[in-house]
C-alpha cells in the first residue's frame, strides 16, 4: 500500500492487486504497539484501514483476486489475475508472508476442527477449555498470553530448551498460573477423528512419548514469504526474494518490498520503508525507460 501511495503521488498509472482486502498479516495482529506515531498502540485492522484510507483519493486501479502468473518481458511484464490480464513496465512484489505449518500428520485435516493459526480469531471458541500453543518465538508467547485471558489451561510446547521470544514475554509466560511450559518437546502427530482429540508428544531429553489431551492447538512456528507466483528467473533464497538496498531484484523492472524479501526484520515499520524505497526505485526506472 505504501508503494502504491508513493507511485500514485508521483503520477504513475498504478494497479494494486490484492487477493483479499488490504492488510495481510497485520489483520491477524491484535495490538500493534511498535508502529511510530501511535503511542497508545492500535488494533492491526485499524492500522490496515488507515493505510487503505490513505489511498482513497488517488486514481488507483484495484484488482481483487489472486495472481495466477507473471510472465517477464522487456520492457513489458504480463500479470494474469483471475480472468484479467495486466501489462506493466514495473512490478513491485509485496505479497508478504503467511504462517508456517508444523508439517505433521493430522494438521491439515483438523484445521478449523481444533487446529488454529490465529488466536485472535479462534480463541473465543476455546473459552474455559485446555489448549496447546506450539512454538517458541514472539508470536507463540504473545498469543499464549492473549489466550490465557480466555482458556482454562495452556500447554506451551517448544521443541528447544531456549525460547527466541522477547525476555519480557518469556517472563510473563513462565510465571503465568495458567501456562505450563514444556521444553524440548516436539509434536509428532495431531490426533483426532472429526475433531482434535490429542497431541502425540515426544520429549527429546527423556525420550518419553505420550499423548496430551487438549481441545485446541494453536500453531505459531514462524512465517514464510509468499512466492507462489514469483517467476523462476527472479533470484531468491529460502527466506524470500533477494533485492539490493533499493529493493531491485535481479530482473530489470521487478522490485520487492516487505516480508516477501529475504531479510531479518519483519515489521510493519520496515515494510512501509521498503514500500517507499521500492516505489522510488521503480519511478526512476520508469523515467529511464521513457528517455
Amino acid at each position, binding site marked *: 500500500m505504501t508503494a502504491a501511495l508513493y507511485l500514485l503521488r508521483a503520477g504513475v498509472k498504478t494497479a494494486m492487486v490484492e*487477493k*483479499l*482486502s488490504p*492488510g*495481510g498479516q*497485520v*489483520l*491477524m*495482529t491484535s495490538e500493534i504497539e511498535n508502529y511510530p506515531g501511535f503511542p497508545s498502540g492500535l488494533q*492491526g*485492522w485499524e492500522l490496515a484501514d488507515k493505510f487503505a484510507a490513505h489511498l482513497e483519493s488517488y486514481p488507483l486501479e484495484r484488482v*481483487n*483476486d*489472486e495472481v495466477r502468473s507473471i510472465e517477464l518481458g522487456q520492457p513489458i511484464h504480463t500479470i494474469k489475475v*483471475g480472468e484479467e490480464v495486466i501489462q506493466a513496465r514495473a512490478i513491485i512484489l509485496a505479497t508478504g508472508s503467511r504462517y508456517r505449518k508444523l508439517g505433521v500428520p493430522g494438521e491439515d485435516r483438523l*484445521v*478449523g*476442527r*481444533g*487446529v*488454529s*493459526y*490465529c488466536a*485472535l*480469531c*479462534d480463541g*473465543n*471458541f*476455546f473459552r474455559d477449555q485446555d489448549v496447546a500453543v506450539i512454538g517458541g518465538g514472539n508470536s507463540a508467547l504473545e498469543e499464549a498470553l492473549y489466550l490465557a485471558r480466555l482458556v482454562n489451561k495452556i500447554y506451551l510446547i517448544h521443541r528447544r530448551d531456549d525460547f527466541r521470544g522477547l525476555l519480557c514475554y518469556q517472563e510473563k509466560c513462565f510465571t503465568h498460573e495458567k501456562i505450563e511450559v514444556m521444553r524440548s518437546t516436539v509434536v509428532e502427530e495431531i490426533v483426532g477423528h*472429526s*475433531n482434535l482429540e490429542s497431541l502425540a508428544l515426544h520429549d527429546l531429553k527423556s525420550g518419553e512419548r505420550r499423548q496430551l489431551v487438549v481441545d*485446541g492447538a494453536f500453531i505459531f512456528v514462524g512465517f514464510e514469504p509468499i512466492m507462489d507466483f514469483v517467476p523462476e528467473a527472479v533470484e531468491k533464497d529460502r527466506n524470500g526474494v533477494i533485492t539490493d538496498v533499493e529493493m531491485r531484484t535481479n530482473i530489470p523492472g521487478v522490485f520487492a518490498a516487505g516480508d516477501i524479501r529475504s531479510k531479518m526484520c519483519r515489521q510493519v515499520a520496515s515494510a512501509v520503508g521498503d514500500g517507499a524505497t521500492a516505489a522510488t526505485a521503480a519511478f526512476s526506472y520508469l523515467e529511464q525507460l521513457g528517455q
Partner: protein
Amino acid sequence: MANQITDGNFEQEVLQSDVPVLIDFWAPWCGPCRAMGPVIDELAEEYSGQVKIVKMNVDENSATPGKYGIRAIPTLILFKDGEVVDQSTGAVSKSSIKEMIAKKAL
C-alpha cells in the same frame, strides 16, 4: 452486499432454500474475516439468483456454529438442498470460492 442471517432464520434461509447457499461464519474481532468481507459481498452480487451468499456473525449467533462444529473463523459452508456439500476454513481467494461453487453447487 451479502445479507446477515441469524440462528432464528437459518432453517428458512438456508435449509429450505431453493438455491444453494454459501454461509460465511465471521466475527467483528477476526482479522481474516474482515479481509474476506469485500470478497463475499462481491460474490453475493455476482451469483445473485443462482447461489445465495450470506454471512452469520458467530458472536451474536451460537446455536448454528455449534451445530456445525465450527471452531475457527472464517469458515465457509456450502449447502445444497439442506445438506452440507463443501466447507473451508481460513481466508481464501475469490477464485477458489468460485471453484468451490462451480464444483459443488452448480
